[in-house]
């Protein structure tokens, strides 16, 4: 071992390189592979064509999430193509011997919610999935990133991936967050500062007091959205908060084995003096509750700020900016505070964990849904839904006039029936405000669960800080 100080990223990456050759990308061994119905069928076809088996079924976990209905999950899926895709996943898992957490299975849910909650996601691992938000798992101190279907096929066949090593970025957030300002606001703020392409080509490590003070679920929200600034992935070194979260999880090591593992995991940190290609520093005190106004996640502002004026946008970017505002039906310089909302979506792998639902429930308790507004609360997994019911959150939601639905990706990408109609404004706790993301013509404003809860009960965009 050399004594050169190393980053956490380098430690994990380098220890997983099976082969590194001049002029070739690295061949990296993958500890854990998650699959779902949308990006895997063509990969399984590839295996079949070669007569190949899955390299290691014990390193592969499957669930159905993107297409699944969030109502009447016990009935056959109505939409024929969605049903077909989920059935294909069933057939493929059966044929190749992979464990599937299918609809109604107690462990079913959004792939990036179930991995951590089941303790399958552990510090120090390499993790991939045919889904860009695989970066979520990095919250536990691992190298986790999204891949395409050809790469899914590579991993299924050989448990390895061919990948050029990305550059490294450190993002430090110092200080403490104001009350009502959450992990979601923190990450939306960073993306707004550095743009939706600001970290392309980099793997990000988050550090600093404000990051350390986040719960595991908050850390997952931050790492989840790393991809929205272009990063290959995001990670946070594991600490006591991580170990406490992991303890007793279904597939985590148990008993003495767990304690032994914790000692190992404690070594997973960036050495003093290790070099990053880029270091960025932010102050948590500058962060307000955030909201996006445009059609990429970098187009975000504080809820009390105004949409940029044309003069504030560089000339070369004005056409794209204008196109985006036209789609959103907004004017340059406009304030969003008080803007009337049609839909509220609380869900997705960014913000549909139990803490998110608790936060929303606490705020809406004793309040009523605003007139004319549609509110969808979609838990990230069956376990989250179960926990919510055990804590009586479902009753709180019912009392306010909302409905707790079945788990899945739902209106995050509108592959199932949950679509926002054209021209309607949706305040959403998901991660992408792209044109048509929540349905053709839908207008998405990305926010934290708390800001979404404000919209749900007032029907408008509001400042949570004035209400807590």
């Amino acid at each position, binding site marked *: 071992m050399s004594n050169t100080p190393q980053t956490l990223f380098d430690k994990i990456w380098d220890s997983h390189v099976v082969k590194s050759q001049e002029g070739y*990308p690295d061949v990296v*061994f993958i500890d854990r592979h998650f699959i779902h119905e949308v990006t895997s069928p063509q990969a399984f076809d590839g295996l079949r064509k070669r007569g190949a088996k899955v390299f290691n079924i014990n390193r592969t976990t499957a669930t159905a999430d993107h297409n699944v209905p969030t109502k009447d999950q016990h009935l056959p899926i109505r939409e024929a193509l969605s049903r077909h895709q989920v059935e294909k996943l069933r057939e493929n898992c059966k044929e190749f011997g992979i464990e599937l957490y299918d609809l109604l299975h107690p462990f079913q849910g959004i792939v990036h919610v179930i991995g951590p909650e089941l303790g399958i996601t552990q510090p120090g691992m390499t993790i991939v999935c045919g889904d860009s938000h695989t970066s979520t798992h990095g919250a536990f101190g691992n190298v986790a990133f999204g891949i395409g279907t*050809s790469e899914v*096929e590579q991993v299924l066949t050989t448990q390895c991936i061919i990948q050029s090593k990305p550059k490294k970025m450190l993002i430090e957030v110092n200080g403490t967050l104001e009350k009502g300002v959450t992990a979601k606001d923190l990450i939306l703020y960073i993306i707004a500062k550095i743009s*939706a392409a600001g970290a392309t080509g980099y793997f990000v490590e988050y550090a600093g007091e404000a990051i350390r003070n986040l719960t595991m679920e908050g850390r997952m929200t931050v790492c989840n959205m790393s991809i929205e600034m272009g990063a290959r992935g995001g990670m946070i070194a594991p600490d006591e908060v991580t170990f406490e979260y992991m303890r007793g999880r279904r597939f985590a090591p148990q008993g003495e084995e767990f304690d032994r593992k914790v000692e190992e995991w404690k070594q997973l940190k960036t050495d003093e003096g290790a070099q990053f290609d880029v270091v960025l520093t932010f102050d948590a005190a500058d962060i307000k509750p955030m909201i996006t106004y445009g059609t*990429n996640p*970098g187009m975000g502002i504080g809820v009390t700020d105004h949409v940029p004026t044309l003069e504030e946008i560089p000339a070369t970017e004005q056409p794209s900016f204008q196109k985006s505002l036209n789609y959103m039906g907004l004017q340059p310089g406009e304030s969003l505070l008080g803007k009337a909302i049609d839909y509220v979506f609380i869900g997705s792998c960014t913000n549909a964990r139990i803490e998110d639902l608790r936060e929303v429930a606490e705020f809406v308790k004793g309040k009523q849904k605003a007139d004319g507004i549609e509110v969808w609360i979609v838990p990230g997994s069956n376990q989250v839904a179960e926990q919510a019911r055990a804590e009586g959150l479902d009753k709180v939601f019912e009392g306010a006039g909302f409905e707790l639905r079945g788990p899945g990706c739902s209106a995050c*990408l*509108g592959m199932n029936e949950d679509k926002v109609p054209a021209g309607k404004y949706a305040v959403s706790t998901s991660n992408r405000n*792209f044109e048509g993301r929540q349905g053709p013509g839908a207008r998405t404003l990305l926010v934290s669960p708390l800001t979404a809860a404000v919209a749900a009960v007032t029907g408008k965009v509001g400042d949570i800080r004035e209400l807590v």
Partner: protein
Amino acid sequence: MKETITKLTSQAAPLPIENIDTDQIIPARFLKATTREGFGDNLFRDWRYNSDNTLKADFVLNDPTYKAARILVAGKNFGMGSSREHAAWAIHDYGFSVVISSFFADIFRNNSLNNFVLPVQVSDEFLAKTFAVIEADAQAQITVDLENQQVTLPDGTATSFEINPYKKNCLMNGYDDIDYLISLRPEIEAFQAAL
């Protein structure tokens, strides 16, 4: 026959929009197919078609002038967002072999390279010049030479582009990553056994 990319001279279709995400390239509701074919029909679906499925006359791919284009030229940060390889499949299936932009998202770049779509990253200035050349003459022929890693505009202005030598070799010879990985199987097994 195996598909390869070596050198291509073609008309180019201009899409001077920045931050084109893969949800625009292929919207999620078209990701339900379980094969790789046919995605080209829905390439840029919501920009190409009205909600009643009629064609939008002002979208570049609906303009017969650009019918022969095998090169797509797009604004910076092309392919951001979702990892869906369907985006690369759609571009390939539609008939494009090259995308020129001044910046590409990482996953899209990998997915393209795995599907014989060559991402050519040029400077902002060269990209602006390329758009200007196409605007002046829709029939302008652009040459992309993978072997020499060079793009040349009709007036002879040229620039070089980067590509990993391994990936270049794959594209020029029709190899794919899985063949290479399978050849490493003994090493991978030994690696796993030592964990």
